[in-house]
């Protein structure tokens, strides 16, 4: 329970980190993040890097679905556009990652602008299907436009270089990824409280009322698509330097669905929810792998069931969350905080 928490200026009321406690925790988190790569095992470090990239893309999707209420089934395609742009600029034009990753973001942003154009005429389910079409078309282009993308062979990318030192191990990549992710998460939090963020939310809640109040629907929706695909593009660029190679198989429809799952399970419209969702959806398959490995002692065949079990667990988690906790992990976290705020009193 917050006592004595009154604001005297508009600036302090609108702040992203509102109380000294929150600011303190953020500092602690930053310190922990700095220390983490030196104490964590190799595989865990790799997973955290992967989750960082995925969380960035998932955040973009959350801006589109959670803030603006537009459904997109093509997020992986935008990530692919960003990846391929960064890879092509890095290999064919020799640009450094300082230029190629943002260029990937901008290219994905342009793609998002094109894909968002149908939102002028169609809404809801139909728009979702249009994004599905975009996913299929982009995927086809990645595989078949061989002159540009190298087809199924993909493109190999040399490691990023900062001041001459190559970023070729997970620890250095960690700092790069976390820096980019942190900046973009702050940007998203800032966007939420800005004029455009309020326009997004207005479009989500009652778009016709928003239009009456003066929000330009088309421009807002296009902007949402652009921001969301920019995030996906940056994530794609980071992915390329992290994985050192990009192939068309990296961006299938199932990745788009995974992003959807991360955003929905984490909590639509919630920024910490994005992180919860990403971590949850990445770690559950890992735990399952661990579990089937352990079960091998009792049940020798366990590991051959890993892939189908992953599908079943994925599906069951989504269904269970949607039925019992539609607001996702963020809501569970908020409930927990509220519980302890008043503990030992109830409500």
């Amino acid at each position, binding site marked *: 329970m917050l006592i004595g928490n009154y604001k005297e200026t508009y600036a302090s009321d609108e702040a992203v980190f509102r109380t000294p406690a929150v600011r303190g925790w953020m500092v602690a988190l930053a310190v922990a993040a700095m220390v983490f790569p030196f104490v964590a095992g190799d595989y865990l470090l790799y997973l955290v890097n992967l989750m960082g990239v995925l969380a960035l893309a998932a955040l973009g999707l959350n801006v589109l*679905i959670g803030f603006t209420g537009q*459904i997109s089934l093509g997020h992986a395609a935008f990530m692919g556009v960003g990846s391929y742009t960064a890879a092509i600029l890095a290999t064919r034009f020799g640009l450094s990652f300082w230029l190629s990753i943002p260029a990937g973001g901008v290219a994905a942003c342009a793609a998002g602008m094109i894909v968002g154009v*149908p939102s002028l*005429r*169609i809404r*809801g*389910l*139909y728009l*979702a*299907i*249009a994004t*599905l*079409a*975009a996913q*299929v*078309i982009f995927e*086809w282009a990645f595989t*078949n*436009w*061989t002159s540009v993308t190298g087809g199924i062979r993909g493109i190999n990318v040399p490691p990023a270089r900062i001041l001459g030192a190559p970023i070729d191990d997970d620890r250095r990549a960690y700092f790069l990824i976390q820096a980019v992710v942190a900046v973009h998460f702050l940007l998203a939090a800032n966007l939420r409280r800005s004029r455009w963020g309020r326009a997004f939310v207005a479009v989500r809640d009652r778009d*016709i009322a928003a239009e009456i109040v003066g929000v330009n629907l088309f421009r807002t929706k296009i902007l949402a698509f652009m921001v969301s695909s920019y995030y996906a593009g940056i994530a794609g660029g980071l992915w390329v330097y992290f994985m050192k190679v990009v192939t068309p198989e990296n961006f299938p*429809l199932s990745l788009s*669905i995974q992003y*959807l*799952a991360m955003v*929905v399970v984490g909590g*639509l419209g919630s920024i910490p929810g994005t992180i919860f969702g990403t971590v949850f959806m990445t770690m559950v398959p890992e735990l399952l792998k661990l579990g089937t490995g352990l079960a091998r002692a009792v049940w020798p065949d366990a590991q051959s*069931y890993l*892939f*189908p*079990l*992953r*599908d*079943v*667990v*994925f*599906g*069951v*988690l*989504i*269904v269970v969350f*949607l*039925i019992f906790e*539609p607001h996702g992990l963020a809501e569970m976290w908020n409930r927990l905080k509220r519980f302890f705020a008043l503990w030992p009193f109830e409500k």
Partner: protein
Amino acid sequence: MDHLLQLLVSGVVTGGIYALVAMGFVVVYKATRVINFATGELMMLGAFFAYSAMTALQVPFAVALAVAVLASASVGAATERLVLRPLLGQRAISVIMVTIGLAAVFKGLAQVVWSGEYRSFPPIFPRAPVALGPIILPSRQLYPFLIAVAAIAVVALGFRFTRTGIAMRATADDQAAAFSMGIDIRRVFSLAWMLAAITAAVAGIVVGVIGGISPQLGAIGLRMFPVVILGGLDSIAGALVGGVIIGVLENLAGGYLDPLLEGTSVKEVVPFVVLVLVLMIRPYGLFGTREVERL
């Protein structure tokens, strides 16, 4: 000229099969305003039920078909009761995600029960190809087309003329009004999902007979969106027309554009380009009902 004719006819016939798959989507949407992303997996389950009936239980095809229909109907009813009813009235993204989750569950369970191998269905159509003038049609294309047309006709007429069909359409149109007229909404939803599962099972068996069965059979489901949208999300006749048009366009693209583009295959992407065009120009498709927005 013969080549063109062959492409056209073969496209029409393939289109019939697409229409059968698309009908699975249309039936669900027509009755519940939900797009069921698990249609492909329901198809796959239906095919596996029939396959198991024929191989493990050694029954003739007609009985296997009945078994598959009953089993799929139960799956559909259970799905509706356990998963979709709690989500009545929730936003579209939730319902889409739940059907996607269901698709994953079905696929995983099928792989656990039947293993991921690819199997061929015991042959049920006569082997000989059929000649229509200068066109030769393989039996595995023609008979499924006839089955598709028959199934579509039955379902379309059912929706139009039976009381249950009218009840379903009324429920989809305006739940509250239907309820106040005495229609049992819960039963309508159960029936709708059972019907959807049955049509998906029939489509799945047909596709399985043509191309073999595996847990991946469901992947064809999402490829049918162009057909569904072109025909109109709530039009069964539209599914047939849309299927035929997409089948023909696909074949023509494959026959004429592929050789021009040396090696790249446009065949897969042409339906989705058509989908985008349809969504831009006429989102409700050829026969879909125009949604009137009331503030």
